[in-house]
């Protein structure tokens, strides 16, 4: 499993209220949520983002609310992976449960810049920065998580049990 795309870079503590503000939580329609993704931190994100793009954040990405609308908005906007130094725990499990790929990699979080072209090999955890000709190594998912993702989400993995 691989992906390649351009990077949208943010800082530390990107919270779920800026990923999808609560004023839009009166719907669970994923496309509607995606249209407002990152709006309060990056107004033009929804217009700019292209399928396959990658979000890179700093520490504690996705902190705050448990709203699954946050990873759902990011996934539906076309983003193929979020890389961060660390993730807030509810965002982390929500992303896995809905099948949004996420990787913890402090080095990548530090060195990758906005607009860089990056590809990711999920089996090995190797992140390649084509703009800077650098590679970074993230921890690939443990088997338990791989099984959830392979089943296309938690609920399918339960049904297959």
């Amino acid at each position, binding site marked *: 499993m691989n992906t390649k795309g351009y990077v949208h870079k943010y800082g530390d503590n990107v919270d779920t209220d800026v990923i999808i*503000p609560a004023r839009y939580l009166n719907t669970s329609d994923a496309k509607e949520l995606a249209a407002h993704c990152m709006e309060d931190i990056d107004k033009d994100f929804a217009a700019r983002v292209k399928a396959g793009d990658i979000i890179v954040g700093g520490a504690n990405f996705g902190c705050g609310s448990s*709203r699954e609308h946050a990873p759902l908005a990011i996934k539906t906007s076309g983003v193929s992976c979020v890389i961060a130094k660390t993730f807030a725990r*509810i965002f982390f499990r929500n992303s896995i449960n809905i099948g949004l790929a996420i990787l913890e990699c402090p080095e990548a979080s530090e060195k990758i810049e906005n607009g860089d072209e990056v590809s990711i090999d999920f089996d090995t955890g190797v992140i390649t920065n084509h703009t800077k000709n650098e590679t970074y190594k993230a921890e690939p998912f443990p088997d338990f998580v791989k099984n959830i993702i392979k089943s296309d989400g938690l609920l399918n993995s339960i049904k297959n049990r």
Partner: protein
Amino acid sequence: MAMTMTQKILAAHAGLDSVRAGQLIMAKLDMVLGNDITSPVAINEFKKNGFDSVFDKEKISLVMDHFAPNKDIKAAEQCKQCRIFAKNFSIKNYYDVGEMGIEHALLPEKGLVAPGEAVIGADSHTCTYGALGAFSTGVGSTDMAAGMATGEAWFKVPSAIKFELVGELRRPFVSGKDVILHIIGMIGVDGALYKSMEFTGSGLKSLTMDDRLCMANMAIEAGAKNGIFEVDEVTLAYVNERVTRDFKVYRADDDAEYDEVYTIDLSKIEPTVACPHLPENTKEARELSSIIPDQVVIGSCTNGRLSDMKAAAEILRGRHIAEGIRCIVIPATQKIYKDCIALGYIDTFIDAGCVVSTPTCGPCLGGYMGILAADEIAVATTNRNFVGRMGHVTSKIYLASPEVAAASAVMGRICDPRDIK
């Protein structure tokens, strides 16, 4: 192998003799919670995946509290979807307008959580019930759907940070909110990432249940998986009044391993405020007297309980809020609301110039009932002061205790309750 309090509860619910930090487990659940924002997503997933029964209709709670009473047509549709689901599956603990309260005030009040139990909720502040000595943590809607179907959830067993509380709070000016804001200021918004925060020590006995519920509530604001309090007489007095089923009290082993141990002297805690835009940006209230709020909110799952209402009423009694301030008071449940009426607090609030709302999460997450305009400033007893959390992206939120919030409403600037005139 020595275990923390959280690890013992998780081991028991996973059917294991012991667990260690980092281990992945499947645990049985005693309660699965959702609200009117997160449940519709869970219900859609539940249906999409063809589940046709819930694991236990008495162990699911659905609380319509975020955008209820319905703030608009879309919110009404979401509540309607939950209402129909609850009816179809005979969900016993379904709370709608008239019975509902803010979920994390309501569940303990109704005796729906007991010490030693394992609870997940599709709301990040589900960690509140750690105050009762339960393992309780926030999850997303997919986990909620899976929990409703199977009565189980997967967890990575957390390590823990121990907070040894000593001394006694300086009442009536300092309360649990000041302690937890102080701690978040000390360790940061990711200071307890993926970990448990365990609260223990000789200072515990001076903390009321409302103090503890407020503190456990904000464990998530330090990134924690859960916050949990050692069970003592205060807990048992509270629980025994409300819970009729059997429960088991777990204690951490004396030789349990902790990543860090902090000693917190409660007698040294000052009235504390978290400045925009993170709960870790704490200062003493006295340092912020130049901040002029437009709005004060007293309520939420953090500080909408009876002792919070009492603290605010005692400051507002015989006083009036300053000109130009809008003060919104929100008792967290119908019972708290009625108690406030019986005790004369509602009269006090209205006479002081405040507005009193029916229970709702409304303004805390910028839903409704007190949205901020551009550049406006709020002092709020809520739990998050992120960018745009309560309204316009340029508005600002200062998080404080009910004591500081009420004093600030009266003085028209952020005010230490000891300095009120």
